C-alpha cells in the first residue's frame, strides 16, 4: 500500500512538471512559418539548381563552353556545346542542358567553373508532375530572358511565392444534336 501511494505521488509530481513546462511554452511566440503565406529568405550560399550568368557588358552568357563543369559532374547531368562566332577568338555557348532529375545538387560544377559563368539559382519551388520540366535548357532560358528586355527575374526567395494554378480543363463542349 505504501509503495503504491509513493508511486502515485511521484507520478503526479512528474505530471505536474510536464504540465508546468508545456504551460510555459503556451505563452511563447510560435516558431513555425506558415509556408504558402510566409516564406523564409534563402541564404546567399543556397545551392539550388544552376543557371548561366550573363556578362553585363556584352549581354550574353559568360560561358565559353570549356566543359569543365561537364567533366566534374559526378552524375553526368550537364551537356554543354559551343561554337565559334565570326571574328571572335573564343567559343561561345550554344547549348547548355541540365538534367535535373539526375542532379544531386553537390555544386561541383560551380566550383569547377573558372570564369564564374554559372551560379546557383535560389528557386526551390520546383515540384512538378511532368518529368520534361526537369530537363532544363539553361541557354534558352537565358536567351528568352534577354529577348524580353527585362532584367532577370529575382530569385524565388526574394519575392512572395507565386502560386501557379494548374491549367483548367476546358469545359466539355456541348454536343448539339
Amino acid at each position, binding site marked *: 500500500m505504501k509503495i503504491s501511494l509513493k508511486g502515485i505521488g511521484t507520478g503526479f509530481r*512528474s505530471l505536474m*512538471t*510536464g504540465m508546468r513546462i508545456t504551460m510555459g511554452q503556451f505563452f511563447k511566440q510560435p516558431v513555425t512559418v506558415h509556408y504558402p503565406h510566409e516564406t523564409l529568405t534563402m*541564404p546567399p*550560399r*543556397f545551392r539550388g539548381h544552376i543557371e548561366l550568368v550573363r556578362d553585363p557588358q556584352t549581354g550574353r552568357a559568360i560561358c565559353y563552353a570549356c566543359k569543365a563543369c561537364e567533366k*566534374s559532374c*559526378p552524375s553526368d547531368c550537364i551537356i554543354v556545346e559551343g561554337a565559334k562566332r565570326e571574328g571572335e577568338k573564343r567559343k561561345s555557348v550554344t547549348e547548355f542542358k541540365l538534367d535535373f532529375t539526375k542532379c544531386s*545538387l553537390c555544386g561541383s560544377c560551380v566550383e569547377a567553373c573558372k570564369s564564374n559563368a554559372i551560379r546557383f539559382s535560389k528557386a526551390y519551388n520546383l515540384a512538378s508532375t511532368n518529368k520534361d520540366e526537369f530537363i532544363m535548357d539553361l541557354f534558352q532560358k537565358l536567351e528568352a530572358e534577354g529577348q524580353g528586355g527585362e532584367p532577370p527575374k529575382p530569385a524565388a526567395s526574394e519575392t512572395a511565392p507565386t502560386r501557379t494554378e494548374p491549367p483548367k480543363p476546358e469545359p466539355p463542349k456541348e454536343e448539339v444534336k
Partner: protein
Amino acid sequence: MSTSQVIPAPEQPHETFVLNVGPQHPATHGVLRLKLTMDGEYITRAEPVCGYIHRMHEKMGENRTWAQYLPNTGRIDYLAAMAYGHAYVAAVERAAKIEVPPRAEYIRVITTELNRISSHLVWFGAFLLDLGGFTPLLYAFDDREKILDLLEALTGSRLTYCYYRFGGVCNDVDDDFIRGVREFVAGMWPRMKFYRELVTDNIILRKRLIGIGVISDEMCRKYGATGPVIRGSGVGYDVRKMEPYSVYRDLDFDVPVFSEGDCMARYLVRMEEMVQSLRIVEQALDKLPAGPVMTSGVPRVLKPPAGDYCFAVEAARGRLLVRIVSDNKEIPYRVRWRTPSFCNLSLFEEASAGMMLPDALALLGSLDLVIPDIDR
C-alpha cells in the same frame, strides 16, 4: 506397412507465429524489416532483414574520380553527413600527403560537432516518438532547425553538406556564422536543463527504459558495437580519445560512460554527449585561428600514390572507418566503409531474445539506427 502404425504428431508446447515489422513501419525509421518469431507477447527470435535501400556506394566509388565521390559521403548517413565527409577526406589527405591548415581543422571540428548535436536531437525526438511521447519531438526539431539554418548558411545545403574538400573546406566561416553558433550554444544550455526536467526525469520514461534491453560489454565487443551503445555498457571507447584525429587532442572534453547497459544508459550517454559537443564547439570557437581554409597546390586531378589507407572517425553512431585503395589513378581502386549502424544492429537478434515486443522496440530505438547507413 501395417495400418495400426500411427505417426505421432510433433509436440508443440507453445505455438509461435511470425510477425513482420516493416519494411515500412514508423518504429524502424526507414526501410528495415524485422521478422519476429513471437510466442504470445514475447519474442523468441528476431531476424533483421536489410538491403532495401542498398545503393552501391562502395561500388560507385570505383567508377568516379576521387573528388566526384565527395557528394556520396553525405548520403550514407544523412543525419551525420559531416563526419562521413571528414573520414573520406582525411583518408585521401593521408594518402596524398596533403596538409590541412589549422583554421580548416577547427572549422571541421565545429561543423562536425554541430552535426552530431543535430543528429542526436533527431534521435531524441524519434526515440521518444517510438515510446509514445509526441511533444519532445517538436522541441527537439526546433533546436535542430537552428543548427540546420546555420549549416545551410555556411555550406548551402541542409543535410547533404558536401562541405569538406581535400586540403580544407570550401567556404570560410563568416562573422555571422560564428555569432550564430555562439548564440545557439548559449541558448542550448537552458534547453538541456529543459529536456532533463521534461523528459529525463519523467517517471513514465524511466519506467520504460530502466532495466530494459540490457546489453553487456561482452556482447558489444562480440558484435563490434561502438559509439553510444558500447559507452552505455561501461566501455569508454571513443575514437576522438583513443586515436585522436584532427584537433581533438587540443580540446578538453569528457567521454560519458554509463555501466548499466540498459536503454536508459544509452539515453543518458547521448544526452551527455550533446553537452560535451557544446563544450567542444565553444572551445573550438575560442581557439579558432586565422589563416587560409584551403591548402594551395592541391592538384585538380588527384592521383594518390598506390597503397592502402584507412581513417577512422567518431560519427554520431560510433566508429566510422573508411578504407581506400589507390593504384595511382584518378579513380579509386576500392572504397570500403565500416559503418557503425550495421554493427549496432547485428546485436539486436541476440539482445532481443525473450523480450516483450514494446520493450524490443525501445531497444531498437535506443540503438539509433540509420537504415541507409546499414545498407549503404
